[in-house]
């Protein structure tokens, strides 16, 4: 792929690509590194090499651990690296470099240094038929470790959050759900505002029940809310940033509705959904037990498409959880 995505394809990938172009144009300390970023193999980095040159778009060898900490060192010396990972599971390979190094330097040095790196996972979650090692969604792990983590569910947010992530003085991970990369999105007109980290978005207003929807499930939740509109008035909260989480926005919503369902495409055990439900149970006034729709404990996505789809939550499971909460 070369050049920008075509204008009639104004979708999520285009939004991320535009965000990279905008940040690299705005700040010459921003540079990009990763595997095959020059040709834009993921689609997200298209056109950057011809525009900004090989000094700012570095095609790396297949050395995730080294280039992740390379980013940390470059950041310590004044640069703002954006590191693209070809596969979401590569985050496991560089957990040490992100969580144990980049994330901890600011505190461990007593504030002497900040590490403004962006980790861009341009294709997270199931890719429908890519099996065990290419289908995970490890954002809960980074949130658990306290790394700033965003999962944009809409193209406009993908643009605005990626820009905010690059501008942020701390390490930030940006997970772009693979099922959205190819999607076009009417919410996105081509140039949007920066979306501050840590601010949730009420995607749809409603008075009966709050659905927290993460990533591609913002779309799932909108679809379900519309299909149930004649019997339940659903409010949809898209956290956008999963860490730090906008608890105030959610509190306001649940104060109004008294019911909560979370749909989150990470594993159940210690996943993001667990945290949201636990906090709601501890702190919010609920009229029914909160529920979560997520992958089973410790899911490994099998190859066969029917099995893959069976483990990833969707509209059916969300509808069932909503019904159970309304009973």
């Amino acid at each position: 792929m070369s050049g920008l995505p075509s204008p009639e394809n104004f979708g999520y990938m285009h939004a991320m690509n535009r965000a990279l172009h905008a940040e690299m144009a705005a700040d010459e300390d921003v540079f990009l590194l990763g595997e095959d970023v020059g040709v834009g193999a993921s689609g997200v980095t298209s056109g950057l090499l011809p525009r900004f040159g090989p000094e700012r778009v570095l095609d790396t060898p297949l050395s995730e651990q080294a280039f992740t900490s390379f980013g940390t060192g470059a950041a310590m010396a004044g640069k703002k690296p954006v590191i693209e990972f070809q596969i979401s599971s590569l985050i496991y390979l560089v957990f040490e470099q992100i969580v144990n190094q980049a994330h901890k330097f600011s505190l461990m040095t007593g504030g002497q240094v900040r590490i403004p790196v962006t980790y861009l996972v341009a294709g997270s979650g199931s890719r429908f038929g890519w099996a065990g090692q290419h289908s995970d969604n490890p954002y809960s792990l980074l949130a658990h470790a306290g790394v700033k983590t965003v999962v944009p569910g809409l193209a406009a947010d993908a643009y605005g959050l990626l820009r905010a992530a690059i501008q942020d003085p701390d390490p930030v991970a940006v997970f772009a759900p693979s099922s959205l990369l190819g999607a076009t999105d009417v919410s996105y007109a081509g140039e949007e505002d920066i979306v501050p980290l840590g601010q949730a978005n009420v995607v749809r207003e409603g008075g009966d029940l709050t659905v927290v929807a993460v990533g591609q499930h913002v779309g799932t939740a909108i679809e379900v809310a519309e299909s149930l509109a004649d019997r339940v008035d659903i409010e949809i909260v898209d956290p956008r940033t999963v860490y730090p989480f906008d608890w105030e926005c959610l509190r306001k919503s649940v104060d109004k509705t008294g019911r909560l369902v979370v749909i989150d495409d990470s594993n159940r055990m210690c996943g993001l959904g667990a945290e949201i439900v636990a906090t709601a149970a501890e702190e919010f006034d609920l009229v029914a037990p909160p529920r979560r729709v997520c992958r089973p404990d410790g899911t490994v996505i099998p190859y066969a498409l029917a099995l893959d789809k069976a483990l990833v939550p969707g509209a059916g499971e969300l509808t069932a959880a909503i019904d159970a909460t309304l009973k």
Partner: protein
Amino acid sequence: MTSENRPALYRSMKLIREFEERCLAMAIAGEIDGGIHPYIGQEAVAVGICANLSERDFITSTHRGHGHVLAKGADPRRLLAELLGTLEGFNKGRGGSMHAADMKLGILGANGIVGAGGAIASGAAWAAKARGDSEVVVSFFGDGAMSQGVLLEAFNLAAIWSLPVLFVCENNRYATSLKLESGLAGGAARRAEGFGLVSRGVDGMDVEAVESAAAELLEGVRAGRGPAFLECETYRFFGHHSVLELLGVEFRDPDEVALWRTKDPIPLLGDQLGEDVVAGIDAAVKETIDEAVAFAKNAPSPDPKDALMYLYAGATAVRPGVIL
């Protein structure tokens, strides 16, 4: 190498030795929390290398980092204050022995993960080069680190991008208790050569030899000829860390330790300076360390309510855990 440099090299080694002996005693006495990894015996490496660096050059260091940090010019008072977990420490008591860092002196941190510094060094070197600056980066690590994949990956990055990094392997023959021969196939320098790094070995107990080997390699690094590798054969006189020392865990033949002690780099250089010069430097160093101890012991402690201070740049609200 001219003989005028000798008193400075001697002073720097002596400062590290005195600092470390005091620290080891304080750690064993429980005055320093956690443990420390004493650098005693290896001083010639840090001092010989850092004699070639300016304040603007960078280093990355290891779990055994006090020597590197001091040789790079860090204030021993603030290093000791850090080891005592006080606000006067470089890291305001948040880093301690294994994370001591002074960004103003280009000290990108001691590091508690073996082999972690090499890739950080490469990134810093790339950033300096990209800016058109002339800084170089020295990355220190032990022989144990040579088996960490990330370090070997970093050699590759530094070589293909021709980065201004000097990788310094302090081969002290042991990784904790693991003997060199049981942990490293093929030899350290040969591995580096495999990545195309200009590489050399040197007697790491001879500060002047280290100084001149580093000078030669750094000349090429500064001239833009790409990364280099220096293996320094050295030895630690004490055990792996203060806790093992305290437990009395020893795994080395006492004769071997005694033999290496005859190669102690400090008297080796001191003998060339004359007794008077040595006595003068020794007394001044002792005074400096006495002052550092007094300074550190009087430094204020951080407030527990600020335990997570500095984690994030802005006012990211961290929800309570222990402190409900």
